[in-house]
């Protein structure tokens, strides 16, 4: 069995110019701060796409990353807590595309689940429907939303075992689980690291097959 544990610097080193990166978390909750800090400070890749519910808050490294000019495209839902993302949207220095939160979560799930898209009633009759295909079923309109995948996902969990199985507690699950399924390379920041078999199979939130690298912090 391949040892997945590594340093943040080493794990992050595989991010290259032009990569798309999913960042888990909801505001500060379940946000992989150490991994984003490593991306900010130990990696110089540019032209990045960031996929994140909210692009974090001003106190987090992701604020500096968005500000650095290395991010050219952002997919998010709520950006009120990161004024830098709002600034990029206004100035068009980066492409910032906003989605209803449930649509964003579902797009990422669809990417990981091999679906070609899904129909949602959310966004019909609003600017969210711009450039999207509308499909009518039984006289009700739906938007066809496409799956979303990424090169890398940076996620946060409470605990990992040697096989990469993750446990994520409470409200920190948020986008971390779906993102783990939708990226080619998944790096998990964890507080605890245990031997294989120490996590009850009923309590695994992300099966280890989805996790490529584990970074223990704290």
């Amino acid at each position: 069995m391949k040892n997945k544990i590594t340093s943040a610097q080493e794990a992050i080193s595989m991010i290259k110019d032009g990569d798309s990166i999913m960042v888990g978390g909801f505001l500060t909750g379940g946000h992989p701060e150490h991994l984003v800090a490593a991306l900010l400070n130990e990696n110089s890749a540019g032209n990045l796409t960031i996929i994140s519910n909210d692009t974090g808050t001003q106190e987090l490294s992701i604020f500096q990353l968005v500000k650095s000019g290395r991010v050219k495209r952002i997919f998010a839902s709520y950006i009120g807590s990161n004024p830098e993302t709002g600034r990029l949207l206004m100035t068009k220095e980066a492409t910032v595309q906003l989605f209803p939160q449930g649509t964003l979560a579902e797009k990422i799930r669809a990417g990981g689940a091999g679906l070609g898209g899904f129909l949602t009633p959310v966004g019909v009759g609003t600017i969210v429907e711009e450039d999207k295909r509308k499909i009518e079923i039984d006289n009700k309109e739906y938007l066809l939303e496409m799956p979303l995948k990424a090169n890398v996902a940076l996620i946060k969990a409470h605990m990992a075992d040697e096989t990469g199985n993750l446990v994520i507690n409470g409200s920190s699950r948020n986008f971390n689980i779906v993102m783990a399924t939708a990226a080619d390379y998944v790096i998990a920041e964890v507080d605890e690291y245990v031997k294989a078999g120490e996590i009850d199979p009923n309590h695994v939130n992300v099966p280890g097959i989805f996790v490529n690298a584990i970074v223990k912090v704290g």
Partner: protein
Amino acid sequence: MENREFIAKRIAKELKDGDVVNLGIGMPTMVANYIPKDVNVMLQAENGILGVGPKAGEGEQKSDCIDAGGNYVTTVKGTSFFDSSFSFCIIRGGHVDITVLGALEVDEEGNVANWMIPGKKVPGMGGAMDLVVGAKKVILAMEHVNKNGAPKIVKKCRLPLTAVNVARTIVTEMAVIDVVPKKGLVLKEIAPGLTVEDVQNATEAKLIISPDLKVMEV
């Protein structure tokens, strides 16, 4: 009594025992403070909690237990946690009985605008679009007129919409108004000391006076 408090108190009376309720950030969150003791509702936070309790005090704050506004919260007996994808299955799937949200504008058809003002910094829609489309009942908590004294209850929304034909009840410091599909805005209650004319004068849309018109009680 302050307007916001009055509105929140009145909305609290709309909640029934057993309801699943999602409260938006700001004034809607205040509703939780006024729910009668004998009414048990399950508060949902779209970042992944069903059974949100009161705000966490010093020493009981946990990074794995924040609400959708990023505040540390406690849990109740019977709380459950889940990820964003499941959270929006709950919301979009019609399993939330009531959502309470603020609004910039609402019109005669129940169209709601609450997420952006062109030319101003855009915070993003977050979960608002999913909530107003998915919840069984949408209650708007809003001040009757804007900072400049202009009506927010209008004939036709001018701001970018959050969703089409979703608002069911509007509660302001002046009135309770029901949105009846294919009929219009029905004035059900007016605040103590006000006349129907006072309310109509502060409202752009034409109000239909309920035969059961009552005085608002909180």
